């Protein structure tokens, strides 16, 4: 759905469900995973429907994902770090405090 404008300059690596994904320092996790054509970031708690980012500016919370063991973080507001471990999130996960395991 999205492709880099010019060279991607993806010189670092993050891991999505264990799979290495090239990332560019300074980009958001959401942008990185969109380039990697992730089919969804999470499924919804009620009907287990897949979701991808919708607004990209922190309003819709559709981009929730687990980052380094902490669930329900907003991928569109979080930047990539080398070696970061990201997991797609299935169904319910606590949001308040974002402290799920």
């Amino acid at each position, binding site marked *: *759905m999205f492709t880099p404008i010019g060279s991607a300059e993806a010189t670092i690596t993050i891991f999505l469900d264990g799979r290495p994904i090239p990332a560019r320092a300074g980009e958001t996790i959401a942008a990185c995973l969109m380039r990697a054509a992730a089919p969804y970031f999470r499924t919804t708690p009620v009907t287990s429907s897949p979701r991808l980012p*919708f*607004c990209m500016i922190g309003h819709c919370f559709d981009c929730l994902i687990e980052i380094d063991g902490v669930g329900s973080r907003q991928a569109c507001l979080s930047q990539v770090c080398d070696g970061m471990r990201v997991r797609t999130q299935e169904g319910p996960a606590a949001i308040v405090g974002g402290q799920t395991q």
Partner: protein
Amino acid sequence: MNIPTKPMLSGERQDALAVDADVIVIGAGPAGMSAAIELASAGCQVIVLDLQPTPGGQIFRALQSNLEARPSTDSLLAALGSAYNAGRTLIQQFRATAGIDYRPETTVWDLRADGTVGWLKGEMAGYLRARHVVVANGAMERPTPFPGWTLPGVMTAGAVQTLIKAGRLQPEGQIVLAGTGPLIFLLADQLRRLGVRPALIARTDRFRDKIFALPHIRPAGIPALLKGLGWLARLRLAGIPMRSRVTELKAQGRDRLETVSLTVAGRGMELSCDLLVVHDGIIPAIELAHCAGLALEWRESDASWRPKTSQDGKAQMAAGPALTSGPCRIRISGDARQIGGADAAVAHGRHAAKAILAELGRASVRPPVGAADQTATDVQRTMAARPFIDAAFPLGLAAQLPDDTTIVCRCEEITAGSLRTSIHGGATDMNLIRGVTRCGMGPCQGRSCAVTLARLLGEAATRTPASPAPFRARPPLRPLPLGALAKLSGLDPELAEVVSLEDKPEAALGGDTNG
């Protein structure tokens, strides 16, 4: 661990409460940057809190890093054009102004009318307080519930722009742009320059709207109008298919978007689609103003709330019991106050700053009595195109309320039908409906569904509906990690007292009459 907040400055007892700065500005977009520059240049201590890693707001998002990455970003910057590159001078000036304590990647999760701001940066959180607060947290795209709008492959125009600016990505495949408003044409023109050809631009607006809008044209608004006509002319020249009077938009697919169907002037059509980009204008982001207990007005014609402010941005408290004592120390500026775009935001930021300087007794030169107030004139001039734009691009995708099967609350997946059932069952208050249906109870805290629910309530009202009130807002407005919560800095006894009131909102608000 170092806590970046200074303890309350002692000796600053001129105000009842100790302060960390003269002014806290929330948001480093055009309004926030321009207010901060003006204030700091006049000698004020200014703290600027912003969600993003670099200043610019959504309009100039990642401009600084894209400029630093040249020449590899040359084609990106060329495609984004003057609307984007225009931010360069403002950002440079913001960076170069001494006295601005700029704190990027900082979330604001609480705001009180007495000038107290709850912040979070990484794992650190705390409270700051200032004599004045400028809320410049910008706008959001109007939520547009239609069948299939939650499917992967459906995104807002703003989201695609953010992916271009900050992600350095361009969409590919079969792309449909649907909706109305200047942003959709700006985006289409930027895509054209990137060599991306949308399969269709499906416009909800009609030629008739433009005719009705003509009387709203003001001389000062003409440059903005010419810009818009330029986008349209280039899109037509490039032969990009464009239809107007589009209704009944639907996104279809199993686990992701596969096809889009819509009606053009009464005739149905369906096309395969990889990415559906929707836009229906922008509305002020009110969550901070609402959290602070400020007065909001519901605007039926615009299907949105906006804060009640005076021309210099001064907010007022909502009727009813207040959570804090003393005067309201908040001004609201830029799109968060009234949608006007970047130039209007810059002008208003400066105007609001001038008013604050006057209140602080630091206005540099007093204008001669009777002289035109330059910053006020600039605010008017930069808003001159708005009445025409509002009339020419009326509500489109959101014009009709969704049918019963359409999801309104994206988080809890509540349909318009179940909300209508609850409303027909007698519920007249948004908070009550939230309690019964869970609409607005998910992670976005009602950001995506509140305006639609307010309109559903209006639809059912037999008498003229009173101005609807949004869901009650409770801090934290954004998720606050427990670790950060445990070691909040800057908390003082008076605040702790207010926090305990928050625990018993019903008691604190007593005769709350949201309706």
